[in-house]
Protein backbone atom coordinates (compact mmCIF):
# COMPACT_ATOMS: atom_id res chain seq x y z
CA UNK A 1 0.00 0.00 0.00
CA UNK A 2 1.29 3.44 -0.84
CA UNK A 3 1.22 6.15 1.71
CA UNK A 4 -0.77 9.29 0.81
CA UNK A 5 1.70 12.17 0.75
CA UNK A 6 0.92 15.36 2.65
CA UNK A 7 -0.99 17.84 0.45
CA UNK A 8 0.91 20.58 -1.30
CA UNK A 9 -0.06 23.78 0.53
CA UNK A 10 -0.39 26.68 -1.88
CA UNK A 11 -0.99 30.44 -1.61
CA UNK A 12 -2.22 32.35 -4.67
CA UNK A 13 -0.82 35.87 -5.04
CA UNK A 14 -2.28 38.14 -7.73
CA UNK A 15 -3.70 41.64 -7.62
CA UNK A 16 -6.50 40.70 -10.03
CA UNK A 17 -9.44 38.86 -8.47
CA UNK A 18 -10.27 37.08 -11.73
CA UNK A 19 -6.71 35.83 -12.15
CA UNK A 20 -6.85 34.38 -8.63
CA UNK A 21 -10.21 32.80 -9.44
CA UNK A 22 -8.77 30.86 -12.41
CA UNK A 23 -5.90 29.49 -10.35
CA UNK A 24 -8.21 28.51 -7.48
CA UNK A 25 -10.63 26.82 -9.84
CA UNK A 26 -7.87 24.75 -11.42
CA UNK A 27 -6.34 23.84 -8.07
CA UNK A 28 -9.66 22.73 -6.54
CA UNK A 29 -9.93 19.93 -9.08
CA UNK A 30 -6.42 18.64 -8.43
CA UNK A 31 -5.70 15.91 -5.89
CA UNK A 32 -3.12 16.43 -3.14
CA UNK A 33 -3.42 20.21 -3.19
CA UNK A 34 -4.64 22.62 -0.57
CA UNK A 35 -5.13 26.36 -1.16
CA UNK A 36 -4.24 27.98 2.14
CA UNK A 37 -4.65 31.64 1.17
CA UNK A 38 -5.31 34.16 -1.56
CA UNK A 39 -3.38 37.42 -1.49
CA UNK A 40 -4.08 40.57 -3.47
CA UNK A 41 -0.60 42.06 -3.02
CA UNK A 42 2.97 41.36 -2.02
CA UNK A 43 2.64 42.54 1.58
CA UNK A 44 -0.19 40.06 2.16
CA UNK A 45 1.95 37.35 0.59
CA UNK A 46 4.83 37.98 3.00
CA UNK A 47 2.38 37.89 5.90
CA UNK A 48 0.81 34.65 4.70
CA UNK A 49 4.21 33.00 4.32
CA UNK A 50 5.06 33.94 7.91
CA UNK A 51 1.73 32.82 9.34
CA UNK A 52 0.67 29.84 7.23
CA UNK A 53 3.99 28.50 6.00
CA UNK A 54 2.73 27.38 2.55
CA UNK A 55 4.90 25.08 0.45
CA UNK A 56 4.37 27.03 -2.73
CA UNK A 57 3.42 30.50 -3.92
CA UNK A 58 1.71 31.08 -7.27
CA UNK A 59 3.11 34.55 -7.68
CA UNK A 60 2.17 37.30 -10.10
CA UNK A 61 5.12 39.51 -11.13
CA UNK A 62 3.49 42.89 -11.65
CA UNK A 63 1.78 43.95 -8.47
CA UNK A 64 1.53 47.28 -6.65
CA UNK A 65 4.17 48.28 -4.07
CA UNK A 66 5.95 44.92 -3.88
CA UNK A 67 6.41 43.07 -7.14
CA UNK A 68 6.82 39.33 -7.46
CA UNK A 69 10.61 39.46 -7.51
CA UNK A 70 10.70 41.53 -4.34
CA UNK A 71 8.37 39.06 -2.63
CA UNK A 72 10.70 36.25 -3.68
CA UNK A 73 13.67 38.23 -2.35
CA UNK A 74 11.91 38.43 1.03
CA UNK A 75 10.48 34.93 1.41
CA UNK A 76 12.38 32.83 -1.12
CA UNK A 77 14.19 30.92 1.62
CA UNK A 78 10.95 29.69 3.15
CA UNK A 79 8.81 28.80 0.18
CA UNK A 80 9.01 27.58 -3.42
CA UNK A 81 7.76 30.00 -6.07
CA UNK A 82 6.00 29.57 -9.42
CA UNK A 83 5.71 32.87 -11.28
CA UNK A 84 2.46 33.54 -13.14
CA UNK A 85 2.42 36.48 -15.54
CA UNK A 86 1.32 37.71 -18.95
CA UNK A 87 4.85 38.98 -19.60
CA UNK A 88 7.50 36.66 -20.98
CA UNK A 89 10.43 39.02 -20.55
CA UNK A 90 11.07 38.06 -16.92
CA UNK A 91 11.44 34.32 -17.59
CA UNK A 92 15.23 34.29 -17.65
CA UNK A 93 15.55 36.22 -14.42
CA UNK A 94 12.88 34.07 -12.82
CA UNK A 95 15.08 31.02 -13.24
CA UNK A 96 18.15 32.93 -12.13
CA UNK A 97 16.43 33.48 -8.80
CA UNK A 98 15.52 29.78 -8.67
CA UNK A 99 11.83 30.02 -9.33
CA UNK A 100 10.39 26.54 -9.75
CA UNK A 101 8.50 27.43 -12.92
CA UNK A 102 7.18 30.30 -14.99
CA UNK A 103 3.58 30.22 -16.26
CA UNK A 104 2.37 32.55 -18.97
CA UNK A 105 -1.23 33.79 -18.72
CA UNK A 106 -3.54 32.44 -19.89
CA UNK A 107 -2.39 28.96 -18.91
CA UNK A 108 -4.10 25.56 -18.87
CA UNK A 109 -4.81 23.27 -15.92
CA UNK A 110 -2.36 20.75 -17.41
CA UNK A 111 0.43 23.32 -17.48
CA UNK A 112 -0.29 24.23 -13.88
CA UNK A 113 -0.23 20.54 -12.86
CA UNK A 114 3.18 20.24 -14.50
CA UNK A 115 4.45 23.20 -12.45
CA UNK A 116 3.11 21.58 -9.28
CA UNK A 117 4.96 18.35 -10.13
CA UNK A 118 8.16 20.31 -10.43
CA UNK A 119 7.47 21.99 -7.13
CA UNK A 120 6.90 18.61 -5.44
CA UNK A 121 10.19 17.23 -6.69
CA UNK A 122 11.98 20.43 -5.69
CA UNK A 123 10.50 20.20 -2.18
CA UNK A 124 11.69 16.61 -1.90
CA UNK A 125 15.25 17.88 -2.22
CA UNK A 126 17.13 19.92 0.33
CA UNK A 127 16.31 23.56 0.85
CA UNK A 128 16.51 25.71 -2.29
CA UNK A 129 19.77 27.60 -2.76
CA UNK A 130 19.73 31.08 -1.28
CA UNK A 131 18.40 33.82 -3.45
CA UNK A 132 20.48 36.76 -4.61
CA UNK A 133 19.42 40.26 -3.73
CA UNK A 134 16.98 41.02 -6.48
CA UNK A 135 14.88 43.96 -5.65
CA UNK A 136 16.02 45.38 -9.01
CA UNK A 137 15.09 42.30 -11.00
CA UNK A 138 11.64 43.44 -12.11
CA UNK A 139 12.87 46.93 -12.97
CA UNK A 140 15.31 46.43 -15.84
CA UNK A 141 15.45 50.18 -16.44
CA UNK A 142 17.17 50.79 -13.11
CA UNK A 143 20.47 49.10 -12.53
CA UNK A 144 20.67 49.53 -8.79
CA UNK A 145 18.16 49.10 -6.02
CA UNK A 146 16.36 52.30 -5.09
CA UNK A 147 15.23 50.56 -1.92
CA UNK A 148 16.03 47.56 0.23
CA UNK A 149 13.29 45.39 1.65
CA UNK A 150 13.57 43.82 5.06
CA UNK A 151 11.19 41.27 6.46
CA UNK A 152 10.39 41.39 10.14
CA UNK A 153 8.12 38.41 10.84
CA UNK A 154 5.00 39.15 8.84
CA UNK A 155 5.88 42.81 8.30
CA UNK A 156 7.93 44.36 5.54
CA UNK A 157 10.14 47.41 6.00
CA UNK A 158 10.88 49.38 2.86
CA UNK A 159 14.18 51.21 3.27
CA UNK A 160 14.88 53.83 0.57
CA UNK A 161 18.54 53.55 -0.47
CA UNK A 162 19.02 57.32 -0.08
CA UNK A 163 18.20 57.10 3.64
CA UNK A 164 20.48 54.16 4.41
CA UNK A 165 23.54 55.38 6.36
CA UNK A 166 25.57 52.20 6.26
CA UNK A 167 25.33 48.42 6.07
CA UNK A 168 27.28 46.23 8.47
CA UNK A 169 28.14 42.54 8.09
CA UNK A 170 27.17 40.25 10.98
CA UNK A 171 28.08 36.62 10.18
CA UNK A 172 25.43 35.44 7.69
CA UNK A 173 23.37 38.57 8.19
CA UNK A 174 23.66 42.26 7.58
CA UNK A 175 22.48 45.13 9.71
CA UNK A 176 21.13 48.07 7.75
CA UNK A 177 21.22 51.40 9.50
CA UNK A 178 18.44 53.60 8.18
CA UNK A 179 16.99 56.73 9.80
CA UNK A 180 18.77 55.92 13.04
CA UNK A 181 17.30 52.40 13.32
CA UNK A 182 18.97 49.08 12.63
CA UNK A 183 17.34 46.36 10.52
CA UNK A 184 18.56 42.78 10.34
CA UNK A 185 18.46 40.97 7.01
CA UNK A 186 19.57 37.50 5.94
CA UNK A 187 22.02 38.44 3.20
CA UNK A 188 25.77 38.79 2.75
CA UNK A 189 27.44 42.19 2.69
CA UNK A 190 28.82 41.47 -0.79
CA UNK A 191 25.29 40.84 -2.11
CA UNK A 192 24.00 44.04 -0.54
CA UNK A 193 26.98 45.99 -1.93
CA UNK A 194 26.29 44.62 -5.44
CA UNK A 195 22.67 45.78 -5.30
CA UNK A 196 23.50 49.34 -4.22
CA UNK A 197 24.70 52.15 -6.49
CA UNK A 198 28.55 52.11 -6.35
CA UNK A 199 28.65 55.87 -6.94
CA UNK A 200 26.91 56.35 -3.59
CA UNK A 201 27.86 53.34 -1.52
CA UNK A 202 31.46 52.34 -0.86
CA UNK A 203 32.99 49.41 0.98
CA UNK A 204 35.14 51.19 3.56
CA UNK A 205 35.96 48.07 5.54
CA UNK A 206 35.59 44.28 5.39
CA UNK A 207 32.41 44.67 7.46
CA UNK A 208 31.05 48.07 6.39
CA UNK A 209 29.47 49.65 3.32
CA UNK A 210 28.95 53.38 3.78
CA UNK A 211 26.59 55.84 2.10
CA UNK A 212 28.83 58.75 1.02
CA UNK A 213 26.05 61.26 1.64
CA UNK A 214 26.17 60.40 5.33
CA UNK A 215 29.93 60.84 5.68
CA UNK A 216 31.04 63.96 7.51
CA UNK A 217 34.83 63.47 7.63
CA UNK A 218 37.63 60.93 7.98
CA UNK A 219 40.04 61.29 10.91
CA UNK A 220 42.85 59.34 12.61
CA UNK A 221 42.28 57.80 16.01
CA UNK A 222 44.87 57.46 18.83
CA UNK A 223 46.34 54.31 17.24
CA UNK A 224 46.73 55.90 13.81
CA UNK A 225 43.75 54.01 12.35
CA UNK A 226 41.42 55.86 10.01
CA UNK A 227 37.85 56.38 11.21
CA UNK A 228 34.85 57.60 9.22
CA UNK A 229 32.75 60.07 11.20
CA UNK A 230 29.12 60.21 10.14
CA UNK A 231 26.96 63.29 10.05
CA UNK A 232 25.22 62.10 13.24
CA UNK A 233 28.53 61.54 15.03
CA UNK A 234 28.73 57.75 14.73
CA UNK A 235 32.20 56.38 13.95
CA UNK A 236 33.02 53.47 11.62
CA UNK A 237 36.43 51.87 11.00
CA UNK A 238 38.10 52.44 7.62
CA UNK A 239 40.60 49.87 6.32
CA UNK A 240 43.61 50.74 4.16
CA UNK A 241 42.00 49.50 0.92
CA UNK A 242 38.67 50.98 2.04
CA UNK A 243 40.39 54.36 2.35
CA UNK A 244 41.75 54.02 -1.19
CA UNK A 245 38.25 53.31 -2.55
CA UNK A 246 36.88 56.19 -0.51
CA UNK A 247 39.50 58.69 -1.74
CA UNK A 248 38.98 57.66 -5.36
CA UNK A 249 35.28 58.58 -5.02
CA UNK A 250 35.74 61.85 -3.13
Amino acid at each position, binding site marked *: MTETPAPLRIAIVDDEA*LARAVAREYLETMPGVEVVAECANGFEAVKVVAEHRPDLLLLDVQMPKLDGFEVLDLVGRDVAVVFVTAYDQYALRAFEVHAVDYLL*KPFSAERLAEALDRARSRLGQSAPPPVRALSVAAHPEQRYASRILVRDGSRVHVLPASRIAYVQAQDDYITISCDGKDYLKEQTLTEAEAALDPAKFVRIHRSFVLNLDCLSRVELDARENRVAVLADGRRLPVSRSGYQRLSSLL
Partner: protein
Amino acid sequence: MHPILARPARLASYLAGWLVVGALIAGAVSRRGLSVSEAVVFVLPPLLVYAFICLSAWYVCRAVPLRTSGALRVLAACSLAAAVAAGLWFGLALAWVALLESMPGRDGLAEAYGQQTPFLLSVAVLLFLLALAVHYLVLAFEETREADRQRLALQVHARDAELRALRAQLNPHFLYNCLNSIGALTTVDPSGARRMCLMLGEFLRTTLHAGALARIALADELALADRFLSIEQVRFGSRLEIERRIDEAALSARVPPLFLQPLVENAVIHGIASLLDGGIILLDVRRAGGRLVIAIENACDPELLTPMRHGTGLTNVRDRLHALFGSAATMTARAHQGRFRVELNLPLSVDD
Protein backbone atom coordinates in the same frame (compact mmCIF):
# COMPACT_ATOMS: atom_id res chain seq x y z
CA MET B 1 37.85 65.86 -47.86
CA HIS B 2 38.39 67.52 -51.22
CA PRO B 3 35.57 66.46 -53.59
CA ILE B 4 37.88 66.09 -56.63
CA LEU B 5 40.98 64.68 -54.96
CA ALA B 6 38.87 62.17 -53.06
CA ARG B 7 37.67 60.37 -56.21
CA PRO B 8 40.15 59.17 -58.86
CA ALA B 9 37.52 59.34 -61.65
CA ARG B 10 36.79 63.00 -60.91
CA LEU B 11 40.49 63.81 -60.71
CA ALA B 12 41.09 62.15 -64.11
CA SER B 13 38.38 64.16 -65.87
CA TYR B 14 39.58 67.32 -64.12
CA LEU B 15 43.12 66.80 -65.42
CA ALA B 16 41.80 65.92 -68.88
CA GLY B 17 40.02 69.30 -68.88
CA TRP B 18 43.32 70.98 -68.04
CA LEU B 19 45.07 69.17 -70.91
CA VAL B 20 42.54 70.66 -73.30
CA VAL B 21 43.08 74.11 -71.76
CA GLY B 22 46.85 73.53 -72.02
CA ALA B 23 46.56 72.64 -75.74
CA LEU B 24 44.56 75.84 -76.38
CA ILE B 25 47.10 78.01 -74.56
CA ALA B 26 50.01 76.30 -76.35
CA GLY B 27 48.26 77.02 -79.64
CA ALA B 28 47.82 80.66 -78.72
CA VAL B 29 51.44 80.93 -77.61
CA SER B 30 52.75 79.28 -80.79
CA ARG B 31 50.95 81.88 -82.87
CA ARG B 32 52.98 84.51 -81.03
CA GLY B 33 56.35 83.38 -82.36
CA LEU B 34 57.19 79.93 -80.88
CA SER B 35 57.11 76.57 -82.63
CA VAL B 36 54.30 74.20 -81.64
CA SER B 37 56.61 71.71 -79.88
CA GLU B 38 58.39 74.54 -78.06
CA ALA B 39 55.06 76.00 -76.99
CA VAL B 40 53.90 72.60 -75.65
CA VAL B 41 57.10 72.01 -73.66
CA PHE B 42 56.96 75.59 -72.50
CA VAL B 43 53.33 75.61 -71.36
CA LEU B 44 52.16 72.12 -70.36
CA PRO B 45 54.34 71.10 -67.35
CA PRO B 46 53.78 74.31 -65.34
CA LEU B 47 50.13 74.21 -66.33
CA LEU B 48 49.63 70.71 -64.91
CA VAL B 49 51.21 71.88 -61.66
CA TYR B 50 48.87 74.84 -61.79
CA ALA B 51 45.93 72.41 -62.13
CA PHE B 52 46.79 71.17 -58.66
CA ILE B 53 47.26 74.68 -57.30
CA CYS B 54 43.76 75.49 -58.55
CA LEU B 55 42.36 72.66 -56.44
CA SER B 56 43.02 74.95 -53.48
CA ALA B 57 40.02 76.98 -54.69
CA TRP B 58 37.97 74.47 -52.72
CA TYR B 59 39.32 75.79 -49.45
CA VAL B 60 38.56 79.35 -50.49
CA CYS B 61 34.99 78.28 -51.33
CA ARG B 62 34.65 76.57 -47.97
CA ALA B 63 36.07 79.51 -46.04
CA VAL B 64 33.88 82.06 -47.84
CA PRO B 65 30.57 80.31 -48.56
CA LEU B 66 28.37 82.18 -51.03
CA ARG B 67 25.23 81.84 -48.93
CA THR B 68 26.49 83.45 -45.75
CA SER B 69 29.23 85.84 -46.90
CA GLY B 70 28.68 89.32 -48.34
CA ALA B 71 29.34 89.96 -52.04
CA LEU B 72 32.26 92.26 -51.23
CA ARG B 73 33.88 89.67 -49.04
CA VAL B 74 33.50 86.99 -51.70
CA LEU B 75 34.91 89.33 -54.35
CA ALA B 76 37.88 90.32 -52.21
CA ALA B 77 38.66 86.73 -51.20
CA CYS B 78 38.40 85.46 -54.77
CA SER B 79 40.57 88.24 -56.22
CA LEU B 80 43.19 87.83 -53.55
CA ALA B 81 43.28 84.04 -53.98
CA ALA B 82 43.43 84.37 -57.77
CA ALA B 83 46.29 86.91 -57.54
CA VAL B 84 48.26 84.72 -55.13
CA ALA B 85 47.70 81.60 -57.25
CA ALA B 86 48.63 83.38 -60.47
CA GLY B 87 51.76 84.80 -58.80
CA LEU B 88 52.70 81.32 -57.68
CA TRP B 89 52.17 79.99 -61.17
CA PHE B 90 54.26 82.79 -62.63
CA GLY B 91 57.14 81.97 -60.30
CA LEU B 92 56.90 78.30 -61.24
CA ALA B 93 56.85 79.09 -64.93
CA LEU B 94 59.88 81.36 -64.48
CA ALA B 95 61.79 78.52 -62.79
CA TRP B 96 60.72 76.12 -65.55
CA VAL B 97 61.97 78.49 -68.26
CA ALA B 98 65.28 78.96 -66.45
CA LEU B 99 65.65 75.16 -66.36
CA LEU B 100 64.84 74.88 -70.08
CA GLU B 101 67.33 77.66 -70.91
CA SER B 102 70.16 75.86 -69.13
CA MET B 103 69.76 73.04 -71.67
CA PRO B 104 71.63 73.38 -74.95
CA GLY B 105 69.86 74.82 -78.00
CA ARG B 106 67.18 76.63 -76.08
CA ASP B 107 68.42 80.16 -76.29
CA GLY B 108 66.03 83.04 -76.47
CA LEU B 109 63.32 81.30 -74.50
CA ALA B 110 63.46 83.74 -71.64
CA GLU B 111 63.05 86.57 -74.06
CA ALA B 112 60.10 84.89 -75.77
CA TYR B 113 58.65 84.18 -72.35
CA GLY B 114 59.04 87.78 -71.29
CA GLN B 115 56.85 88.79 -74.20
CA GLN B 116 54.17 86.33 -73.15
CA THR B 117 54.07 87.43 -69.50
CA PRO B 118 50.96 89.66 -69.58
CA PHE B 119 49.03 87.07 -71.61
CA LEU B 120 50.02 84.14 -69.39
CA LEU B 121 49.34 86.01 -66.15
CA SER B 122 45.85 87.04 -67.20
CA VAL B 123 45.12 83.50 -68.39
CA ALA B 124 46.27 82.19 -64.99
CA VAL B 125 44.01 84.60 -63.12
CA LEU B 126 41.06 83.67 -65.35
CA LEU B 127 41.72 79.96 -64.89
CA PHE B 128 41.77 80.30 -61.14
CA LEU B 129 38.53 82.25 -61.20
CA LEU B 130 37.08 79.47 -63.36
CA ALA B 131 38.27 76.90 -60.82
CA LEU B 132 36.58 78.91 -58.08
CA ALA B 133 33.33 78.91 -60.04
CA VAL B 134 33.53 75.15 -60.58
CA HIS B 135 34.21 74.53 -56.91
CA TYR B 136 31.32 76.76 -55.84
CA LEU B 137 29.12 74.69 -58.13
CA VAL B 138 30.36 71.42 -56.68
CA LEU B 139 29.78 72.76 -53.19
CA ALA B 140 26.22 73.83 -54.01
CA PHE B 141 25.57 70.45 -55.60
CA GLU B 142 26.81 68.56 -52.54
CA GLU B 143 24.81 70.77 -50.20
CA THR B 144 21.62 70.11 -52.15
CA ARG B 145 22.28 66.41 -52.05
CA GLU B 146 22.93 66.51 -48.31
CA ALA B 147 19.72 68.47 -47.77
CA ASP B 148 17.83 65.89 -49.82
CA ARG B 149 19.32 63.10 -47.78
CA GLN B 150 18.34 64.81 -44.54
CA ARG B 151 14.82 65.45 -45.75
CA LEU B 152 14.48 61.78 -46.66
CA ALA B 153 15.88 60.71 -43.31
CA LEU B 154 13.39 62.97 -41.57
CA GLN B 155 10.52 61.49 -43.56
CA VAL B 156 11.64 57.97 -42.73
CA HIS B 157 11.91 58.95 -39.08
CA ALA B 158 8.41 60.44 -39.05
CA ARG B 159 6.98 57.38 -40.76
CA ASP B 160 8.80 55.24 -38.27
CA ALA B 161 7.29 57.09 -35.34
CA GLU B 162 3.87 56.63 -36.94
CA LEU B 163 4.36 52.92 -37.37
CA ARG B 164 5.72 52.39 -33.90
CA ALA B 165 2.80 54.32 -32.45
CA LEU B 166 0.30 52.24 -34.37
CA ARG B 167 1.98 48.98 -33.55
CA ALA B 168 1.98 49.90 -29.88
CA GLN B 169 -1.80 50.19 -29.92
CA LEU B 170 -2.27 46.48 -29.71
CA ASN B 171 -0.30 45.63 -26.63
CA PRO B 172 -0.15 41.82 -26.53
CA HIS B 173 -0.02 41.74 -22.71
CA PHE B 174 -3.34 43.53 -22.64
CA LEU B 175 -4.75 40.75 -24.81
CA TYR B 176 -3.20 37.97 -22.71
CA ASN B 177 -4.61 39.45 -19.52
CA CYS B 178 -8.02 39.88 -21.17
CA LEU B 179 -8.06 36.27 -22.28
CA ASN B 180 -7.12 35.21 -18.79
CA SER B 181 -9.99 37.24 -17.33
CA ILE B 182 -12.43 35.80 -19.86
CA GLY B 183 -11.23 32.32 -18.98
CA ALA B 184 -11.97 33.03 -15.32
CA LEU B 185 -15.39 34.51 -16.06
CA THR B 186 -16.56 31.51 -18.09
CA THR B 187 -17.29 29.58 -14.89
CA VAL B 188 -17.97 32.27 -12.28
CA ASP B 189 -19.94 34.63 -14.53
CA PRO B 190 -20.68 33.26 -18.01
CA SER B 191 -22.69 36.29 -19.13
CA GLY B 192 -19.86 38.51 -17.90
CA ALA B 193 -17.49 36.45 -20.06
CA ARG B 194 -19.71 37.03 -23.06
CA ARG B 195 -19.88 40.78 -22.32
CA MET B 196 -16.10 40.90 -22.08
CA CYS B 197 -15.75 39.05 -25.42
CA LEU B 198 -18.07 41.59 -27.03
CA MET B 199 -16.19 44.55 -25.58
CA LEU B 200 -12.85 43.12 -26.62
CA GLY B 201 -14.15 42.33 -30.12
CA GLU B 202 -15.52 45.84 -30.48
CA PHE B 203 -12.28 47.35 -29.20
CA LEU B 204 -10.15 45.33 -31.62
CA ARG B 205 -12.41 46.11 -34.57
CA THR B 206 -12.44 49.86 -33.97
CA THR B 207 -8.72 49.92 -33.23
CA LEU B 208 -7.84 48.18 -36.49
CA HIS B 209 -10.28 50.33 -38.43
CA ALA B 210 -9.11 53.63 -36.92
CA GLY B 211 -5.47 52.68 -37.42
CA ALA B 212 -6.01 52.70 -41.19
CA LEU B 213 -7.36 56.27 -41.23
CA ALA B 214 -5.36 59.50 -41.36
CA ARG B 215 -7.59 61.42 -38.95
CA ILE B 216 -10.63 60.58 -36.87
CA ALA B 217 -13.10 62.63 -34.84
CA LEU B 218 -12.03 63.21 -31.25
CA ALA B 219 -15.40 61.77 -30.19
CA ASP B 220 -14.42 58.43 -31.76
CA GLU B 221 -10.97 58.54 -30.22
CA LEU B 222 -12.52 59.11 -26.79
CA ALA B 223 -15.04 56.31 -27.35
CA LEU B 224 -12.12 53.99 -28.07
CA ALA B 225 -10.40 55.04 -24.85
CA ASP B 226 -13.68 54.37 -23.02
CA ARG B 227 -13.89 50.85 -24.44
CA PHE B 228 -10.35 50.16 -23.38
CA LEU B 229 -11.01 51.46 -19.88
CA SER B 230 -14.23 49.45 -19.46
CA ILE B 231 -12.29 46.30 -20.31
CA GLU B 232 -9.62 47.21 -17.79
CA GLN B 233 -12.36 47.84 -15.23
CA VAL B 234 -13.35 44.19 -15.49
CA ARG B 235 -9.77 43.26 -14.59
CA PHE B 236 -9.17 45.83 -11.87
CA GLY B 237 -12.70 45.99 -10.44
CA SER B 238 -13.24 48.80 -7.96
CA ARG B 239 -9.57 49.78 -8.09
CA LEU B 240 -10.13 51.62 -11.36
CA GLU B 241 -12.42 54.67 -11.40
CA ILE B 242 -12.88 56.99 -14.35
CA GLU B 243 -13.82 60.64 -14.40
CA ARG B 244 -14.53 62.63 -17.55
CA ARG B 245 -14.51 66.38 -18.11
CA ILE B 246 -15.30 66.68 -21.77
CA ASP B 247 -15.95 69.97 -23.54
CA GLU B 248 -18.65 69.17 -26.14
CA ALA B 249 -17.23 71.88 -28.43
CA ALA B 250 -14.04 69.83 -28.83
CA LEU B 251 -15.67 66.57 -29.89
CA SER B 252 -15.79 67.34 -33.60
CA ALA B 253 -12.05 68.06 -33.79
CA ARG B 254 -10.04 65.83 -36.13
CA VAL B 255 -7.15 64.04 -34.46
CA PRO B 256 -4.60 61.37 -35.44
CA PRO B 257 -6.15 57.97 -34.70
CA LEU B 258 -5.20 56.13 -31.53
CA PHE B 259 -2.92 58.88 -30.30
CA LEU B 260 -4.48 58.84 -26.81
CA GLN B 261 -4.31 55.08 -26.48
CA PRO B 262 -0.70 54.80 -25.20
CA LEU B 263 -1.40 57.52 -22.62
CA VAL B 264 -4.54 55.83 -21.32
CA GLU B 265 -2.68 52.52 -21.20
CA ASN B 266 0.18 54.17 -19.30
CA ALA B 267 -2.28 55.61 -16.81
CA VAL B 268 -3.59 52.11 -16.09
CA ILE B 269 -0.38 50.09 -16.15
CA HIS B 270 2.00 52.50 -14.41
CA GLY B 271 -0.61 54.40 -12.41
CA ILE B 272 -3.60 52.44 -11.18
CA ALA B 273 -1.95 49.01 -11.28
CA SER B 274 0.87 50.23 -9.04
CA LEU B 275 -1.47 51.28 -6.23
CA LEU B 276 -2.89 48.86 -3.65
CA ASP B 277 -6.26 50.62 -3.68
CA GLY B 278 -6.13 51.91 -7.23
CA GLY B 279 -7.47 55.38 -7.98
CA ILE B 280 -9.06 57.71 -10.48
CA ILE B 281 -8.15 58.31 -14.12
CA LEU B 282 -9.31 61.72 -15.32
CA LEU B 283 -9.89 62.55 -18.98
CA ASP B 284 -9.93 66.30 -19.39
CA VAL B 285 -10.65 67.64 -22.88
CA ARG B 286 -11.29 71.25 -23.83
CA ARG B 287 -11.14 73.66 -26.71
CA ALA B 288 -9.14 76.81 -26.17
CA GLY B 289 -9.57 79.15 -29.13
CA GLY B 290 -7.78 77.53 -32.03
CA ARG B 291 -6.15 74.92 -29.82
CA LEU B 292 -7.17 71.54 -28.54
CA VAL B 293 -6.05 70.71 -25.02
CA ILE B 294 -6.26 67.15 -23.80
CA ALA B 295 -5.08 66.03 -20.38
CA ILE B 296 -4.93 62.55 -18.94
CA GLU B 297 -4.36 62.42 -15.23
CA ASN B 298 -4.01 59.43 -12.99
CA ALA B 299 -3.26 58.53 -9.42
CA CYS B 300 0.27 57.15 -9.10
CA ASP B 301 2.76 55.82 -6.61
CA PRO B 302 5.23 58.71 -6.07
CA GLU B 303 8.00 56.16 -5.52
CA LEU B 304 7.54 54.73 -9.00
CA LEU B 305 7.68 57.78 -11.20
CA THR B 306 10.58 56.68 -13.39
CA PRO B 307 8.69 54.22 -15.60
CA MET B 308 5.79 56.69 -15.91
CA ARG B 309 7.97 59.50 -17.14
CA HIS B 310 10.26 57.59 -19.42
CA GLY B 311 8.03 54.81 -20.68
CA THR B 312 8.01 54.02 -24.38
CA GLY B 313 4.35 55.04 -24.43
CA LEU B 314 5.14 58.69 -23.72
CA THR B 315 8.10 58.68 -26.10
CA ASN B 316 6.00 57.26 -28.91
CA VAL B 317 3.27 59.86 -28.45
CA ARG B 318 5.83 62.67 -28.32
CA ASP B 319 7.60 61.42 -31.48
CA ARG B 320 4.35 61.02 -33.31
CA LEU B 321 3.06 64.48 -32.40
CA HIS B 322 6.38 65.92 -33.49
CA ALA B 323 6.25 64.05 -36.79
CA LEU B 324 2.69 65.21 -37.46
CA PHE B 325 2.62 68.75 -36.13
CA GLY B 326 6.26 69.78 -35.69
CA SER B 327 6.63 72.49 -33.09
CA ALA B 328 2.90 73.36 -33.33
CA ALA B 329 2.06 70.63 -30.79
CA THR B 330 3.43 70.26 -27.29
CA MET B 331 3.28 67.55 -24.68
CA THR B 332 4.06 68.06 -21.02
CA ALA B 333 4.16 65.45 -18.30
CA ARG B 334 4.44 66.18 -14.62
CA ALA B 335 3.81 64.58 -11.27
CA HIS B 336 2.32 66.47 -8.38
CA GLN B 337 1.06 65.17 -5.04
CA GLY B 338 0.41 61.60 -6.10
CA ARG B 339 -1.13 62.55 -9.43
CA PHE B 340 0.56 62.18 -12.80
CA ARG B 341 -0.66 64.44 -15.56
CA VAL B 342 0.13 64.40 -19.27
CA GLU B 343 -1.15 67.37 -21.22
CA LEU B 344 -1.27 67.64 -25.00
CA ASN B 345 -1.76 70.95 -26.72
CA LEU B 346 -2.26 70.84 -30.48
CA PRO B 347 -3.71 72.93 -33.25
CA LEU B 348 -7.45 72.42 -33.57
CA SER B 349 -8.63 71.21 -36.93
CA VAL B 350 -12.32 70.74 -37.65
CA ASP B 351 -13.91 69.16 -40.70
CA ASP B 352 -15.86 71.46 -42.98
